[in-house]
């Protein structure tokens, strides 16, 4: 409004345009109105910054109502100078009514509408009864005189304006009420969802602990026996203990992967912790974890890894690469080589290739390897402790992160996993 008034004043000051169109050239009232509005706004801002610190809601509310009433009074003044009955500027009040409906309750916005009606009736009555001289933007006052001298037109104009404001208030306040109610329901549903998610997370943590802890105890005690902490044991007993240890670890691992998969399937993408991640650090971390197992079978790593940053969920990346790299090691032959490359591509996401020269997978079995619990016969024989869930986890993570996976494999030649990150990961 300040801009419009200032532009109006500037146009009127420097051109004769108003005279050419039969309008009054004396528009000093627009400058005065703009100045009053600027002063009022500066006052509001200063006052608000002072009372914000005290956080007294009543003071803030008083400030807001003072602003509203003051703005309406200035608008009424502008309307008086432009013309209360002979122009359509009266409908400028609708903007204030609609804003009030958006930000305030039904009663408060109705109060604003009533204030508008009172101010308008006040200025029109004051002009009618010559308390203040009637004013207007038109040089030729014929239209105003006609309205003033025709009671029906005068009354019709005044009351139709007020009726339109009241209808605008009714429609806008009801619409706002519906939107507010919807927002409230959405916020409540969101809160309920968060609470349910937290409860589910706690529950899942507890289940994980309760299922894994017994295996930890079984494993600990088999280690005691196998490592001679309880004295000499015959070879047959040691073999039995090794089978017990292997099966308990396998079951513990399977439980862990089942829970990981359940968690991956149930958590929404937007509630994950997305952050900037250096892929080379993730791959190096996986390398450290799998190295002891690789060393036992004399499996070497050949690496060419560039520093590459992506936006991803760190734990997911660890799960994905840990599964793919450990598969490459597990399904390698003894003394094999696992090759890991990570390359940046300008404008596109990076590509990571993990390749082994191990047992490989036949072409007809390749499409199934991401199915839950699927294992090829060759894999089951080669690695008895495999659960068949690792690649299902890889698939979930890849879907969440929009990673394209390409696999090529030949039986007894090895397998190559190519992971292409899209540019949305940058």
């Amino acid at each position: 409004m300040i801009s419009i008034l200032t532009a109006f004043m500037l146009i009127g000051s420097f051109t004769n345009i108003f005279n050419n169109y039969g309008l009054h050239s004396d528009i000093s009232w627009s400058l005065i109105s703009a100045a009053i509005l600027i002063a009022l706004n500066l006052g509001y801002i200063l006052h608000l910054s002072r009372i914000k610190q005290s956080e007294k809601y009543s003071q803030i509310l008083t400030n807001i109502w003072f602003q509203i009433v003051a703005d309406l009074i200035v608008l009424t003044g502008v309307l008086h100078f432009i013309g209360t009955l002979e122009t359509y500027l009266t409908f400028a009040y609708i903007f204030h009514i609609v804003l009030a409906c958006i930000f305030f309750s039904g009663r408060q916005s109705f109060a604003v509408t009533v204030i508008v009606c009172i101010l308008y009736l006040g200025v029109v009555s004051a002009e009618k009864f010559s308390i203040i001289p009637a004013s207007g933007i038109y040089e030729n006052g014929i239209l105003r005189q006609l309205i003033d001298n025709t009671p029906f037109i005068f009354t019709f104009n005044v009351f139709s304006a007020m009726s339109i404001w009241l209808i605008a208030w009714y429609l806008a306040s009801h619409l706002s009420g519906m939107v507010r109610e919807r927002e409230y329901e959405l916020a409540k549903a969101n809160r309920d969802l968060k609470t349910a998610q937290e409860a589910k997370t706690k529950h899942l943590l507890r289940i994980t602990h309760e299922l894994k802890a017994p295996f930890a105890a079984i494993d600990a005690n088999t280690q005691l026996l196998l490592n001679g902490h309880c004295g000499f044991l015959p070879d047959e007993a040691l073999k039995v203990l090794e089978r017990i240890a292997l099966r308990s670890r396998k079951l513990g691992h399977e439980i862990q992967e089942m829970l990981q998969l359940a968690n991956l399937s149930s958590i929404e993408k937007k509630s994950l912790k997305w952050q900037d991640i250096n892929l080379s650090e993730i791959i190096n971390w996986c390398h450290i974890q799998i190295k002891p197992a690789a060393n036992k079978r004399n499996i070497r790593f050949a690496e060419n890894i560039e520093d590459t940053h992506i936006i991803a969920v760190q734990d997911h990346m660890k799960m994905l690469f840990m599964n793919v790299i450990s598969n490459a090691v597990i399904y390698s032959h003894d003394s094999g080589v696992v090759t890991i490359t990570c390359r940046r591509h300008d404008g596109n996401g990076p590509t990571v290739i993990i390749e082994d020269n191990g047992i490989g997978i036949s072409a007809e079995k390749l499409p199934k390897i991401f199915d839950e619990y699927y294992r090829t016969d060759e894999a089951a024989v080669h690695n008895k402790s495999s659960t068949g869930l690792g690649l299902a986890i890889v698939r979930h993570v890849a879907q969440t992160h929009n990673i394209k996976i390409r696999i090529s494999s030949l039986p007894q030649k090895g397998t190559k996993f190519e992971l292409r990150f899209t540019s949305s990961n940058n």
Partner: protein
Amino acid sequence: MPYILIIDDDEDFSAAAALVLRDSGHEVHTEMTIANGEKSILNKPPDLIILDVMFPENGTAGFELARKIKHFDKSIKDVPVLMLTAVNSSFPLGFSSNDIDDKWLPVETFLEKPVDFDMLTNKVLEMLSIRK
């Protein structure tokens, strides 16, 4: 002889871990509850604490004790803490070694159960040598 305190509600596991660590030349004491663990720390400050995360009454009791220890007097607050957990530290539900910092998780390191006892023994030796 270094003195290690194991605080873990799993008696089978803590007994096995204690046996392995005693065979490695350490003095080891075990407690099954957080309350008894805290009393034991105050009675005889250990050189290292092996602390489980979850306890029956409180799923984060281990974290709370680890933070509390940092407010004890000087002879105790600098005792290194090795945290054990059956929840996979890379499971996207809990925490990871990246969460280790003095305010949120004041422990030196995590080990995930089931624990390889060779790894545990090496980790204990490493932490004790740093403390010296």
